[in-house]
């Protein structure tokens, strides 16, 4: 089956493709979310040292992963847009930022809720927590810079530069628990080691990760559609679309 992928790099055709894909991803997100939460809160066993409070990992860990992952994806799209002057990839970057910021905030917030009963403090200035907080600032900086620039082309490029500069922070967050002896524990799931986690717990968590992915894709596609409409409002295809919508 031959699909002409380049066809979808134009905003107009991507707009309709995204419209078809959103319901699929949204449905997948809802189903996985229900499954993940059910496993996490009803099936997964109590932890031997943290008791019930550990269950926050089912939200905290996916959120923290997504916060970093989305930043990298955002920077890639932005960099791609900067290098090849492709409008759609810059729009993708703009669409990712709010979701990334949301997940970063969620990771910080749930982590803080976890920290109080487990560590005995809401917040501690160790390397992991500080660098994750910087990540939130970077997302906010990216969004406000883009919001302050009226010309969309300049906004795309300027945002891309700041996003690429901020990428330095990602390895720092990820490796902070290895480089410094932080209060934050090391990774439970990593590429080169067997997970330090019972399998039901791991399954619940991974399902929640997939749920977050599906959710992010659905929301980002939705946002890209809106951005496309805004940016392309002067084109004929948008005008026709609006006419159809009225009729």
């Amino acid at each position, binding site marked *: 089956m031959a699909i002409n992928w380049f066809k979808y790099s134009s905003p107009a055709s991507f707009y309709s493709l995204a419209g078809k894909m959103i319901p699929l991803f949204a449905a997948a997100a809802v189903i996985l979310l229900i499954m993940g939460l059910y496993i996490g809160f009803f099936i997964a*066993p*109590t*932890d*031997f*040292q*943290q*008791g019930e*409070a*550990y269950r926050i*990992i089912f939200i905290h860990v996916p959120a923290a992963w997504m916060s970093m992952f989305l930043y990298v994806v955002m920077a890639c799209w932005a960099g791609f847009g900067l290098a090849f002057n492709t409008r759609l990839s810059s729009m993708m970057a703009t669409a990712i930022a709010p979701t990334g910021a949301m997940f970063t905030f969620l990771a910080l917030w749930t982590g803080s809720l976890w920290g109080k*009963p*487990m*560590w*005995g*403090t809401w917040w*501690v200035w*160790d*390397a992991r927590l500080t660098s994750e907080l910087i990540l939130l600032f970077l997302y906010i900086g990216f969004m406000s810079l883009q919001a302050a620039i009226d010309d969309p082309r300049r906004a795309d490029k300027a945002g891309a530069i700041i996003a690429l500069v901020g990428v330095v922070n990602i390895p720092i967050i990820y490796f902070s628990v290895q*480089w*410094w*002896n*932080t*209060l934050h*524990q*090391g*990774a*439970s799931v990593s590429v080169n080691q067997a997970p*330090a*986690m*019972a399998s039901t*717990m791991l399954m619940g968590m991974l399902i929640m990760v997939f749920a977050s992915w599906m959710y992010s894709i659905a929301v980002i596609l939705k946002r890209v559609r809106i951005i496309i409409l805004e940016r392309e409002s002067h084109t004929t295809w948008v005008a026709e679309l609006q006419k159809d919508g009225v009729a």
Partner: protein
Amino acid sequence: MKPRHKKLAMIVAGVAALGVASVLVLDAFQSNLVFFFTPTQVAAKEVPIGKSFRIGGLVTEGSVQREDTSTTVYFSVTDTSHTIPVVYTGILPDLFKEGKGVVAQGKMSDRGIFKADEVLAKHDENYMPPEAAEALERAAKAQKASLSE
């Protein structure tokens, strides 16, 4: 200098600067840029004198003593080679247990006791049901017993 040479010189200078930077980073990671100090470092007097700092390690098995009338707790922190006695008044976090990780902030007193203002529990990255933990522990004990025989 011709422009081409100038460009080359700039690239060489840039690479050299990055080389220096990586040497500096490696150098920094050799020394202690730490969130907490270990009991060994405390014993070796590598810690701030007369200043507040953090000490981290495991709570020594059987060392926790609580006063009946107050919330003052005595325990010691170990990294298996050295052990430092700690005194703390206040509420301990849920995860504070003998044999588990702990990070305490405070000062060394003159008598070699660490007076903590704040005690934080540091848990590890392992998650498992209690039965599994017990089974692991039994296995470890059995192994130990078989080794000592």
